[in-house]
């Protein structure tokens, strides 16, 4: 009797195991085909020799990485010194993406808070309105932003008309224009995860804090922000990472002075440069930086929760 019970219990769990292996297949196929294969290809290509009109020759070389980090003169025969051009582009990209992320956070958090504190029936309408611009292609949105802020665009025309300024602000082709473009492109990716966090926030925690002699700002700092932190972190990652690799906003709004990583990489594959291994190497370096930042964050998180 007891043995029978055990056997039947075992059979059931085996059936589940059998099914779960089959059910896992699509997920593994996805990861393999869409994640491991392209990233693997990218890393492999970065160690290959370039073909002049695009493409690669299957010969191992570190030339792409060497070109990224070291300057060997015009003909490649001088003693190597540090090449600052690409490091500078990376640094500028990180800075631009950082500014855009902070701007998204400063605007996105109050927006998400506002939506999450509306009546449940009107929340979806607000969220819907936030996402409407994103039904339009990113290229079109970025071009319209260009038309809005250029010297003869409506913004400057209006400011001139009101007399607030005496000549156009000269916003286009500046770092500010790129930051504005990135901010506009990725704002919903900040609003939505923060909204999800704030919506779950238990407002009796704010009451408890006020009851325990905490002012509104202290409550925000000591209770609200730590509790909704997962949403803030998710939002920052979702804005920062694509901003770092963006090429539309810097190309269209920034002009040549504000070259970013995304444009650099794009140029290697599509544009005049046509250097696939170098583009792959720059992508690999970018990926390593992002992964390193996320890993450091994740490790600190774990330490925090173990404390």
């Amino acid at each position, binding site marked *: 009797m007891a043995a029978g019970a055990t056997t039947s219990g075992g059979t059931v769990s085996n059936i589940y195991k059998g099914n779960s292996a089959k059910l896992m297949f699509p997920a593994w196929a996805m990861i393999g085909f869409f994640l491991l294969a392209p990233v693997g290809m990218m890393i492999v290509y970065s160690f290959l020799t370039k073909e002049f009109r695009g493409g690669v020759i299957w010969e191992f070389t570190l030339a792409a990485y060497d070109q990224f980090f070291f300057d060997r003169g015009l003909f490649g025969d001088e003693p190597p010194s540090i090449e600052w051009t690409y490091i500078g582009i990376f640094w500028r990209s990180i800075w631009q993406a950082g500014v855009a992320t902070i701007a998204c956070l400063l605007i996105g958090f109050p927006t998400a808070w506002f939506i999450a504190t509306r009546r449940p029936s009107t929340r979806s309408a607000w969220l819907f309105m936030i996402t409407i611009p994103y039904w339009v292609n990113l290229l079109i949105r970025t071009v319209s932003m260009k038309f809005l802020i250029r010297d003869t665009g409506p913004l400057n025309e209006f400011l001139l008309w009101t007399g607030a300024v005496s000549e156009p602000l000269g916003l286009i082709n500046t770092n500010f224009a790129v930051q504005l473009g990135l901010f506009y492109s990725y704002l919903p990716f900040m609003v939505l995860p923060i909204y999800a966090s704030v919506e779950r926030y*238990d407002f*009796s*925690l704010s*009451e*408890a*804090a*006020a*009851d*325990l*002699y*905490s*002012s509104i700002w*202290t409550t925000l700092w*000591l*209770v609200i922000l*730590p*509790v909704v*932190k997962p949403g803030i972190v998710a939002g920052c990652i979702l804005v920062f990472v694509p901003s770092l690799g963006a090429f539309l906003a810097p190309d269209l709004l920034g002009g040549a002075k504000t070259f970013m990583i995304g444009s650099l990489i794009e140029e290697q594959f599509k544009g005049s440069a046509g250097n696939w291994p170098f583009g792959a190497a720059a992508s690999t370096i970018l990926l390593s930086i992002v992964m390193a930042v996320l890993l450091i964050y994740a490790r600190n998180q774990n330490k925090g929760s173990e404390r």
Partner: protein
Amino acid sequence: MTSAEIAVDIENVVKRYGSFTALHGVSLSICENEFFTLLGPSGCGKTTLLRSIAGFEEVSSGTIRLKGEDITGLPPHKRPVNTVFQQYALFPHMTVTDNVMFGMLRSGWSKTDAAQRANQVLEMVQLGGFAARKPAQLSGGQQQRVALARALAPRPAVLLLDEPLSALDLKLRQAVRVELKSLQRETGIAFIFVTHDQEEALTMSDRIAVMSNGEVQQIGAPPDIYESPVNRFVADFIGETNLLDVDVHSVSDGMATLSLPGGHGFTCPAAAMRGAGKGHLSVRPERIALCAEGAGDLDATVTGRVYLGTDIQLHVRLADDEAMTVRLQNSETTIVPEEGSAVGLKLEVGAARLLAD
């Protein structure tokens, strides 16, 4: 009661939400070192009143004084009262100690003093070993104690408790009642306790304010409320009762002379402000004795019997079809009449009471 002994003085407090009035001019005083309960069904305004004392609700008119000082306009963080919330509202990202120290650190305690006091309070609620845990790692009962410790730690002038036992299971709830009462004695401050559970109110309170529809119906010690309810609402809400339609002949010196259904004359205590005419008599089911038909104050027919363990509940019907309930103690000597048999009911004089409405 001199003003020095009054911890919280509520004077004519009105709270409106748009066209809905949650509190219709409530006035009451809560003494120092008193376990005071606001009791009533949901929607009666008890929680609104508690939240008004805490400062979470702005009253529409009226005055709230704390130890003689007008606090009506103060925001919650400037009121020296603390609250134990219904769902505890513990800060999930902080340890038990940090939760308990929160209020002290915000109100100017030094870190060392606050840490010492936190230890002391956690010992008091028997959670000394749990200081480093997060709220999610505690059981419901333990979380409830942390909430209590957190609210008591900054030494509030008054402790407010918003149905803090409702999330606990029955056994735990009964144990915590006793602890809460002794904690109140130990700390020596007024506890204002909100509940819809009459048993909770009767077992813990020094005084109870029974509320309904935004008004205080009756304030008194548990025996007063139970034995001398002033109106139908209080009689019906606190415990079980039988309400009989009676003809009141006269009322003098708080005693009413009346005739019961069936014509028997009867004399019993009456609520104040009560005159002659039609009225309601409240009789507790356990204060009715059975006797032979015709020998008691009322004659009735048994229509049903319900076994309740400690008691046996008897449903009876009077000649005019009014239904009543009688509770008999379940002992070996109790004779339980058969269904359909005719019985006489004898009312204990002190236990029946003529209500004001």
